[in-house]
């Protein structure tokens, strides 16, 4: 069968770890160094979906968090089937901005699906994690598959976030 290509994008404030999540998923590496993304960077990875053994070619758009050209973001996320909306568990304001990012994505792509990734779980104490997860749950929105705690550094849930998103994209 032919491989289906899908565009997904990572959205969130600057320095929340979008680029790191992608690098972890695509290249399997992590770096402490922070190089802010300018504009957008595109990567690609073929994902095998287990039960159906379907193949999906993910074209991953890493979108700058620190954008001066606010109006350009909708252009970059246009035509995406899925999104990972990323927040930084160690910076409350990035979590506060999650709803705005979610809204922008669904406005631009009404039929899209998304996963919310609460990143940098490695630097958060266990007992705080559950609380934070509770506070930032977007379960009420049916297009949000789930909210998940991730760490690009420790490779926690990174593959899972991408794969679950991919699975839900072929269904939709």
């Amino acid at each position: 069968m032919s491989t289906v290509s899908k565009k997904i994008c990572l959205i969130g404030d600057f320095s929340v770890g979008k680029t790191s999540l992608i690098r972890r998923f695509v290249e399997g590496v992590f770096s402490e160094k922070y190089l802010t993304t300018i504009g957008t960077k595109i990567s690609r990875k073929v994902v095998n979906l287990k039960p159906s053994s379907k193949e999906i070619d993910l074209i991953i758009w890493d979108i700058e968090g620190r954008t001066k050209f606010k109006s350009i973001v909708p252009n970059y996320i246009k035509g995406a089937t899925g999104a990972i909306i990323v927040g930084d568990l160690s910076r409350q304001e990035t979590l506060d901005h999650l709803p705005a990012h979610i809204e922008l994505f669904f406005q631009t792509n009404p039929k899209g699906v998304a996963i919310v990734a609460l990143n940098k779980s490695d630097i958060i104490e266990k007992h705080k994690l559950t609380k934070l997860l509770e506070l930032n749950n977007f379960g009420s929105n049916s297009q949000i598959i789930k909210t998940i705690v991730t760490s690009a550094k420790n490779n926690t849930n990174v593959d899972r976030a991408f794969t679950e998103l991919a699975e839900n994209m072929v269904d939709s």
Partner: protein
Amino acid sequence: MPDSIDKLIDLLLDVETPVNPTNSEPASSPKEQQSLLTKPEKKPAFLAQKIPSTVESKDSVIEISHETAADNNNTEPNSTEPSLAESETNLAAIETPQPIEVVEESVAKVAEVVLDDRIQAISSAISSLKEQNIQETNNNGFSTDFVNPGIDDWILEKEARLNELADSLNNLIPLMMELLSVKVNDSQELILQTMIPLMDRAIQERSSQDLDKMSLAIARILPDAIAQEIKIEPKSMGKAIAPELALSIEEQIRLDQDAVSLALGSEMGKAIKAQIELEKDAMVDALYPVIGNTISKYLAEEIGRINQKVENSLSREGISRKIRAKMRGISEAELILQESIVCKVQAIFLIQKDSGLIICEVQPDKEHPLESDLVAGMLTAIRSFANDCIISGSELSEIDYGNFEILLEAAGYCYIAVVISGQPKPEFRDRIRETLSKLVMQYGDKIENYQGDTSTIPPSVKLVLKDLANIETDETSEANQKKSAPILLWLILIILASILLPWGIFKYHAVKSQRITEKVAVQLDNNPQLSVYRLQSQVDRKNITITGKVSSSHLRNLAQEIVSEIAQEEKLNLDNQIIAVDVPADPTFTTQEVTRVSQLLNQLTGVGIVSDYQDYRVTITGFILDTVSTETVTSYISNIPGVKQVVFNVKQELPTVDTRIYFDSQESEIKNSTEAGKIDFIKRFLEEYPTLNLRVIPHSDSKGSKSFNQKLTLERAKTVYQTAISQGVDPNRLEIVSEELFPPDVTPDQPLWLSRHVRFEPFIPEKTLP
């Protein structure tokens, strides 16, 4: 045993590549050396091709004389001629990396032979060869180093040298590829190899660069460029506006309903408005093929084309390069360059506008495919950035990467990106448009609903794209022109006829025969082997007659082949009156070519030359600092048609400048007229060596703090620099460089004043092509 001796001799000849004889001589030595090399029969594969091989005759000679201060008028070129066989092998050995492997292999084989207890035979072979070599090279200095060394040592040493040679070649080749690929016709793969990583990087870099700068850079150019285009060339306006007309209408409606409704009539305005409110992209789809491809654009562009034709038929000389150059608004040289680059489609992508997903792709070169998904994504990002953030509502239509160009054409839900190497004909843009409108008309809905699954796209889409990939045979573009425009062509011809009544009567045949003549000329000119000759064609009602002189019957037949195709198409007879004689190539062309190639060669490090062409002989003056470059220069220059002899008048070492301008303690002003007079020397030096520039290097004594001295030395350098410029020295030829504060060659026990100076160091400037 004669076999292994033969092998050994071959090997020795190969290994003893003439590391330039003068290398061992101090540059200032008055001794002169000359060696004559026969012209290399083969050129390195990547250098070959475009240059017509018309002067392949064995008797043409390249002189290489490494000269010093004295002149070489009284030397006898033939006295030091090495054997033909040797010099050829020598050249072969440095051409490509392969021969080196072969040699290495032979070294291994020889080692076996040695183990095989046949040292006797071999060393006798060597010594006889050695003698022979010594005689032949007439004490040129490079055979003495293998008098009686142990054979193993000798082989080891040679091996080491081979490796060095291989290394330097490996370093040089990619560089030369890049620099000289302009000239390469058939080795497209090689260009591609070098370009692909660059392109990927360029695309990535562009995106990761500072957005502000990028927008600034583009924004500065865009409005001006558009304004200019519209003013100067209405046809470009057509091009610019046509594809966006639909979009503009939509935009205009959004901005100013009334004006549009008024203009279009209230009924139409409303209808369009309603439609647009329903579905913007669908509307664009619908409008694109209609508006994009018709009146406004054609009117503008056809007027341009007709103008060209009229201009042609008015010219007495018929079609000459001059006119074509003028028509395209470029210099003749540029035209030659443009035509020498074969244009080739590297890839065509049909991309969904929003998602950047590839709907369909064609990559004719299967060996080095582009990472299409990433390229498409990046293009989409760049495109939407340019279109929305820089000038909204405008369309990014072209991205340039050196010899590569990406042409973009958008409609509805998709756009086409064509990655092209070389200069496409202007008509190619039309073909892209046609292709796109065909695709949008037939498959618009499939494209709109594309979900990333290529199996939903009919295979015929790919065929349409493939068709587009086969560009640039002139027949196709001519044919397109003929097909697409007859009505308007006539319309405009009629208008022109009424204006230009005196010409009206001859119009039809003139235009027709002019068109055929032009076609013949273009085709002949497109052939690299024929483009140097002045071939002419005449067309009457029944015949195409071609006349001119070429240097071989092979070329005559080649011309015959090319023109007979056109004759068949036009249903005319071909009368081939071309004479095959040994005629010289057009000297103007050769002069231009020599200059152009020299400029290219000057981009190699350590090469700073000026070439002068006269009476089939190129005299090269200036500096070439290493032997490999000498070979390169030789093979390039000597392969230019019309060049029979290359005289090297180059130096291998840069001259030293002993002049120093001294300063008083803690002073940055030039102290007296003696010191000031030294500026004049600098001026004369630069006049004497037009290919060299000078570094201005200031120093100070050890008194005072470091920061003070740093400032002081800079001031001193500036003073010298300014004084030199005020005396008429070209500022571009001086470069202030601050090195160590204290001069490297003054010791602490010497007087302080010795350190307070500005010195000069010649260097070969890095050049960019004009």
